[in-house]
Every structure is written in structure tokens, then in C-alpha cells.
């Protein structure tokens, strides 16, 4: 974890509201785990005041990639940045996904911009593992397939792929995996994660979820991003103890 100013190397619009930005890292030997994030200052003044947390989308040839939707003023400003401008980054932060385990097939379940951490996860996945991706979006224009493999798509309005949500789509395909040892990696809106969590706990499926929460510092000092432990009393912090948790470890 360190604070550094990095230059924007590229910025492109992937879909109507989704952007991909890359920055040249000044340390090619940086160790980054898929699922970790950076807390990024999108302006050099007090508006917006706080940093914005973004999952690492990819890290290749010392370039860091972040995928984001325009959601508010901060992400709008980020989308308007130009190549060569500098951003102040703090990271990598958080724990990241655990790529080890007794499985032969990694199943990615992503809702909307929840797809952001998976291109890098797929890149770092050991070669002997299969990867299958389930991707859900509101409609066809919001489907962002960037960096994913073997994709099944669902849309809320049925404009592409399965008509419904991505957890339903995954459940409808579960029989395809009966002879496989699977591990699920999921990221997306909280209602999606809740519905998935219920299913994987019932069926005893190994599953890690990447959660989100408003946060200020991103490294544990502000205590602003609690998430309730599933057993015992008290909270974990999304920024420091997460953002990735085993599906049975937290109450969503």
C-alpha cells in the first residue's frame, strides 16, 4: 500500500455508461491480488472531497486498468480526464480473492459494473482451471464483456440473453456443473449477492463475494465501512478485512 501519482495512459468508453482507464504504474514489480482496489482522488481540490474506491480491473505490462460506470459527480469527472493527466492513487488496498482451493472450474458471477475485478482474476487464474462467466446487466446496452471468458448473459429486460437476473441464470445452468468441482467468485449489487449467498450456503458451494460500501480512507482508519459478521457480535471493515469475503462469513 502506498500513495502515488500516476499518469493516465488511455481512456475509452466501453459501453454507453462504462469507461476503461489505464495508468502507467511506476513499479512494474508491484504485487497486486485480483479483487484488491485503489482509492483514487479524481480532483486536486476539495470537490469532490473524498477519494473513490475502484477495483483493479487488470494489471498488465505495468499498466493498471480500472473499469467504472458514471454514477455521480466523481465518476463523471474521472470519465472526462485526458491522457497525460495525473491521478493520485492509494493502494493496492484490501485483501483480494483467494485463487487457491480444491476446484477445477472457476465460475464468475457478475452484476453490472461488478464485472470490473474479473479480467485480472481471469489473467491470474492457474492455467489448469476452467473459467465460466455469468454476466448480468439491466439491458443490452449495459452488457460489458471486457476481459471475460465463456460468457452467459442475462438482462433484466430480456434485450440480450436470459431474461431475468444473473443468479437465476446461474441456477438454471447448475446441472452443467454437477461433475465439476466449482468455486464461485461474485461481485455485484447487494440484492444479487444476498440471493447468491442464500443459494451457495444451502448447497455448500465454495464462494467468495466482493462487497461494496461507502468509505472514506480505504485503509482502516476512518471505520466508515462496517459489514456485519455472520457469527458472533460485531463488524468487519469492507476496506481492510474485505472487500472479498467468503459468502458465509458476513451478513449482507
Amino acid at each position: 500500500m502506498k500513495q502515488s501519482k500516476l499518469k493516465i495512459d488511455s481512456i475509452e468508453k466501453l459501453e454507453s455508461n462504462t469507461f476503461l482507464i489505464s495508468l502507467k504504474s511506476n513499479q512494474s514489480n508491484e504485487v497486486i491480488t485480483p479483487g484488491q482496489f485503489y482509492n483514487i482522488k479524481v480532483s486536486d481540490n476539495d470537490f469532490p472531497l473524498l477519494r473513490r474506491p475502484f477495483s483493479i480491473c487488470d494489471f498488465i505490462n505495468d499498466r493498471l486498468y480500472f473499469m467504472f460506470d458514471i454514477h455521480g459527480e466523481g465518476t463523471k469527472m474521472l470519465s472526462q480526464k485526458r491522457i497525460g493527466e495525473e491521478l493520485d492513487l492509494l493502494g493496492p488496498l484490501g485483501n483480494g480473492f483467494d485463487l487457491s482451493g480444491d476446484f477445477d472450474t472457476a465460475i464468475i458471477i457478475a452484476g453490472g459494473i461488478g464485472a470490473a475485478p474479473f479480467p485480472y482474476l481471469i489473467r491470474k487464474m492457474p492455467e489448469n482451471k476452467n473459467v465460466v462467466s455469468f454476466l448480468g446487466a439491466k439491458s443490452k446496452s449495459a452488457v460489458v464483456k471486457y476481459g471475460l471468458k465463456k460468457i452467459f448473459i442475462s438482462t433484466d429486460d430480456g434485450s440480450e440473453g436470459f431474461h431475468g437476473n444473473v443468479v437465476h441464470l446461474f441456477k438454471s445452468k447448475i446441472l452443467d456443473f454437477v461433475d465439476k468441482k466449482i468455486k464461485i467468485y461474485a461481485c455485484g449489487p447487494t440484492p444479487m449477492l444476498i440471493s447468491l449467498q442464500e443459494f451457495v450456503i444451502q448447497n455448500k458451494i465454495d464462494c467468495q463475494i466482493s462487497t461494496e460500501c461507502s468509505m472514506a480512507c480505504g485503509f482502516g482508519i476512518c471505520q466508515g465501512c462496517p459489514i456485519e459478521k455472520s457469527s458472533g457480535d460485531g463488524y468487519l471493515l469492507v476496506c481492510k478485512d474485505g472487500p472479498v469475503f467468503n459468502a458465509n462469513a458476513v451478513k449482507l
Partner: protein
Amino acid sequence: MTGIDLSVNVGKLKLKNPVLLASGTNGYGNEISNLTDLSKLGGIVTKSLSLKPRKGNPPQRIVETSSGMLNAIGLANVGVESFVKEKIPFLKELNTTLICNIAASSIEEYVECTKILTAEELISAFEINVSCPNVKEGGLEFGNDLNAVGRITEKVKAATNKPIIIKLSPNVSRISDFAKVVKQEGGDAVSAINTLVGTAFNIWTKKPKIKNVTGGLSGPAIKPVALAKVFEISRNIQIPIIGIGGIMNWQDAIEFIIAGSTAIQLGTVNFINPNAGVEIVEGINAFCEKTSVGKISDLIASYQI
């Protein structure tokens, strides 16, 4: 650094420079020490400690506002016992002045915490939080009550030989009356200000943006208010003041010193720039060089009105 004397005396508490990190914005020093050199600062103030651990409020705990943020963390902390066992050993390695902030829901609890922690040599002073706006019992109710602040100061002072700083609430009509009571009861200094009570609503759901409904406003949005409160105390009461409220850079820090602060604390800025403290110490030094101020203490309450 050149020959400029940046040291200040907050009553009996000697600091090598006036820059402290505020309670609740540096944890117990460990995470932030990876991103900055705490030994270059005047010191750090710990997250509020209570006698027993507190798990804090449910999410959402924070929300960003115009030039500020609201928080309702709810004094989440490890409790005095774990602090001594688990946090003090690490804090010893940091080579910085340690001030312990204490929050409690009764006068007895303040006294008990102070007594236990007084045994720790590493702790240079106590800051008593009588003004947390985010817990139901104690907190703000004490901070709003002149008698309560007076009694807490008196009892805590009697429980320790270490300097006592009372952290004052801005959510009162005359803050200088509270500083006066602190002085009368033997308090060594006051810190001002704690956060201002605020709230924010989501216009679509009509629900408050933080679970606690109200929270404490901090950040650059509150700086003018904080300066006015520091100035009010400075003009009316002879007591050392630690100025807090929206300080983002060395210029802000100098402004607080001119307005009457002997030392300053950085809060929200630590979340955005964890190295701000070191940068501000350097900035203050450069300012003194440029303006031929040999001792930073000459600048305290140097306002020209």
C-alpha cells in the same frame, strides 16, 4: 530543517511541533504508519477509548457532503484493556507523542479509564471527549452541560498527574463558557472543535443517508466555524487551545495558530492524504523561514484586529 523552533507547550504538555493527528482519524497509529512518518509530527491522538469495547453503529456510517463529510461511527473501539495489551506495544515503536482520547457514558467511567491508562508511561496526556454527537448516552449531552463538563474535568484531573485536554463541542451557544469551566476546574487545555451535528437525506427514498440519522460534519466545510470558536475562546479565556476543524494544508494550520491555537489537529484530511501531517510541518517551517518567525509560539494568537 533550519534553526526555527517549532516546539510548543500546551500547558504542561511539550510538543516538538504543533501538528497532531485528531482522534478517530488515525486509528491507533498502525495502518497510517505505512503511509507517513508519524515521528515527524507533534503527536497523535488515539481513537476514543471506552472502558469496554464498543462495536459502533451499523452502516451507513459516513456520507460525503459539500466540502465535507458526515460520520456516525459510534465510538467503535477496542476498549481500554485491549488497547493496553495489543496497541501500546506497537505505539511504542512509533517514536511520537501519544495522547489518549477517552469517551465514556458516565463520570465514573471517565475516571476509571483515566486511572487505568495513567499507569502507561507512553501516554503523555489525555484528551477527554465530552462532545461525541453520535452516541445516545453521554457524549453530546455532557458537552452541552456546563456543570457536567466542570465535574468531568475536576474528577479526571484528580485521577491522574498527566495533562488533561477537554475536547469541546461546537454545538453550544457560547463555547468560551465551557473553556472557562475547564480552566476553573484545573484542565490544562481545550481542543476545539469536535464535529458539528448535521444530516443528509436521499430525496428519492426520503431516508437519511446515514443510519444514525444525524452525524458529525467535518472537513473544509467547517473551517470558518472552527476558527471563530477558537478565536472566541482565545479572546475570552486564558487557556491553551488545540485548534481543529477542516485543516487541509499548512496555510489553514497557520490561520488556526494566528487565531489563537497553540497546536492544531488534522482530521478528515488524513483520510484523503495520509501524509498531510508531515507536509504541513514542512509548510509551517517554510512559512516561518519566509516571514522571519524564529519561534512558532510567537505566532500564537497574533491576530491584528
